[in-house]
């Protein structure tokens, strides 16, 4: 078989082995030509660095080749279908990159006088406007750095509002469905709340009775993802919101799945009090291998006064920034990040939203939902769907179709890699056994979906025919095969060290 072919170099055609930069060091090489310092006079307070740092010296061509080669060991949305549920891996338009790199934005310093940054403040305001209208919410906090920080921001606003009405000591509990993203309970705990888990019903939604029985006057809020992590719309959401408000608590909505509903359903019409928006999911700012993200939080009227610093206001002479806890910022719960938020992401998101327009955003969410339902329809007799459709923008299966095959969800996913697809999300949400969560997004063509369906049907047939080895050995065709995570965790090697 071709995958057994041994080469002299270890390279395999376009798959090129690449050592660490530290292993390519040669003293005397330079990747940047700098001039000479214009004076040798120093004022370094007597702590001049005397020792070597240990950084390697490489030339520019070596550096360019190094990072080009290692990039080729990655799968990106540019490379192919990336149905990672809950992550919304959609196309990242390069126009957005171009806009973010305009020198008028990229070379703008955050502490310039606002008289010299009116265009930047206008852009933040415009991005905020699109988000508020899309969600039908009166305010938005723009500064959170990513989704998880948006959650933190939302829960801090809730805590500040509760403390403002003198119920800080009384309300100490936050309700979180068991299907929630791990960031939800982590965030509630980071705000000093105890977390109470709400079970799901057999339809994959919040068990309304169980929820109501846990709702009391010691509850600060509920953190609910909608559409939820099973890819289902919480059909009781308005009842839940009403009950939360009747109990004097607040409704935090995790907006990770906004991509299913933008332009068709406005979260503000569902009775939520705050929701973070992952600009790097719904509004296509690139995931970048793990960030940077941006997590603006839309806020209801009661929470708006507690929004974090800074925020943009319309002043007498144009736009202004409120940076301190006075005037309009008097009730703000404070600052959660340096400077003014992820400006570079606001530009990209605005570029994406303007390109789509209100009609295109509505079409995008519809196509995302259509694509997911198409996968569900085509795969429901092959794989084992966890819940009946229709689903929203992602569809969930459990591993019962693999029963007695000797193949696990993980093995199945690894075999997908050899077929040229990025695996779906595995083992999340936790509410079904061996979960396979697929989110196709609106970026995929029917042809791609059909190829994917064809591959999954073929793999399932192979698993059921008793060919478990094919899966246990997978992936075979990747730059690296399965990696020993146990060894990595038992004796961590977290940096390169010079051999003694």
């Amino acid at each position: 078989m071709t995958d057994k072919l041994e080469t002299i170099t270890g390279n395999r055609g376009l798959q090129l082995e690449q050592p660490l930069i530290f292993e390519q060091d040669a003293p005397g090489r330079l990747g940047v030509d700098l001039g000479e310092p214009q004076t040798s006079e120093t004022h370094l307070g007597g702590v001049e660095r005397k020792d070597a740092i240990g950084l390697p010296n490489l030339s520019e061509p070596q550096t360019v080749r190094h990072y080009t080669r290692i990039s080729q060991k990655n799968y990106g949305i540019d490379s192919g279908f990336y149905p990672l549920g809950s992550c919304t891996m959609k196309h990242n338009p390069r126009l957005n990159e171009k806009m973010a790199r305009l020198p008028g934005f990229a070379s703008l310093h955050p502490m310039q006088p606002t008289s010299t940054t009116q265009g930047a403040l206008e852009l933040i305001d415009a991005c905020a406007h699109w988000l508020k209208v899309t969600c039908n919410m009166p305010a938005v906090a723009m500064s959170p750095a990513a989704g998880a920080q948006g959650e933190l921001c939302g829960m801090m606003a809730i805590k500040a509002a509760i403390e403002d009405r003198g119920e800080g000591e009384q309300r100490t509990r936050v309700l979180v469905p068991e299907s929630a993203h791990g960031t939800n309970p982590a965030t509630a705990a980071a705000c000093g709340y105890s977390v109470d888990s709400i079970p799901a019903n057999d339809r994959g939604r919040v068990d309304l009775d169980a929820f109501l029985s846990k709702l009391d006057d010691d509850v600060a809020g509920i953190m609910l993802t909608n559409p939820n992590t099973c890819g289902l719309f919480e059909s009781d959401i308005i009842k839940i919101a009403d009950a939360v408000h009747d109990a004097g608590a607040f409704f935090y909505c995790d907006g990770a799945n906004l991509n299913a509903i933008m332009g068709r359903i406005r979260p503000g019409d569902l009775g939520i009090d705050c929701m973070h928006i992952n600009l790097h999911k719904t509004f296509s700012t690139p995931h970048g291998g793990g960030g940077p993200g941006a997590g603006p939080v839309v806020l209801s009227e009661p929470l708006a006064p507690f929004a974090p610093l800074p925020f943009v206001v319309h002043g007498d002479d144009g736009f202004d920034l409120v940076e301190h806890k006075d005037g309009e910022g008097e009730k703000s719960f404070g600052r959660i990040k340096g400077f003014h938020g992820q400006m570079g992401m606001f530009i990209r998101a605005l570029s994406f939203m303007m390109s789509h327009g209100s009609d295109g955003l509505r079409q995008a969410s519809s196509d995302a939902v259509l694509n997911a339902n198409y996968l569900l329809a085509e795969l429901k007799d092959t794989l084992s769907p966890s819940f009946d459709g229709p689903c929203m923008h992602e569809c969930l299966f459990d591993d019962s179709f693999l029963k007695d095959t000797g193949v696990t969800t993980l093995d199945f996913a690894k075999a997908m890699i050899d077929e040229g697809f990025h695996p779906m999300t595995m083992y999340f949400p936790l509410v079904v056994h061996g979960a396979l969560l697929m989110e196709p997004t609106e970026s995929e063509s029917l042809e791609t979906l059909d190829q994917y369906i064809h591959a999954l049907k073929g793999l399932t047939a192979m698993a059921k025919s008793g060919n478990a080895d094919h899966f246990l050995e997978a992936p075979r065709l990747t730059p690296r095969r399965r990696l020993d995570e146990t060894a990595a965790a038992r004796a961590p090697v977290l940096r390169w060290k010079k051999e003694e």
Partner: protein
Amino acid sequence: MSMKYSKEHEWVLIEGDSATVGITNYAQEQLGDVVFVEVPDAGKAVDKGDEVAVVESVKAASEIYAPISGEVSEGNATLEDAPATINSNAEGDGWIFKMSIGDASELDELMDAAAYADHVAGLE
């Protein structure tokens, strides 16, 4: 000397007024390859049900709760460098901590080997 078990899959070896605690073989199988164990320091006073130690695999972390009230007298320091001992010998060298028995009546709430075997059978 007698061996008792908790619903949380801990074993408790009772020797006089001292108890040795670890996780059962069933628990280590469920957890998979153990990569790290956080053992308690001697002198830590615990109430029954308090979190005392943590056993981690690559993808899961399992809290170990005090099966009874008392004071920790020793943590198994060898697990720091050899967490895999829990996989190879969960109910022997893979013990996690020793403690005093603060309230002997709490021992009555633990299961004997037969009851624990029934408990595990009920989970499968």
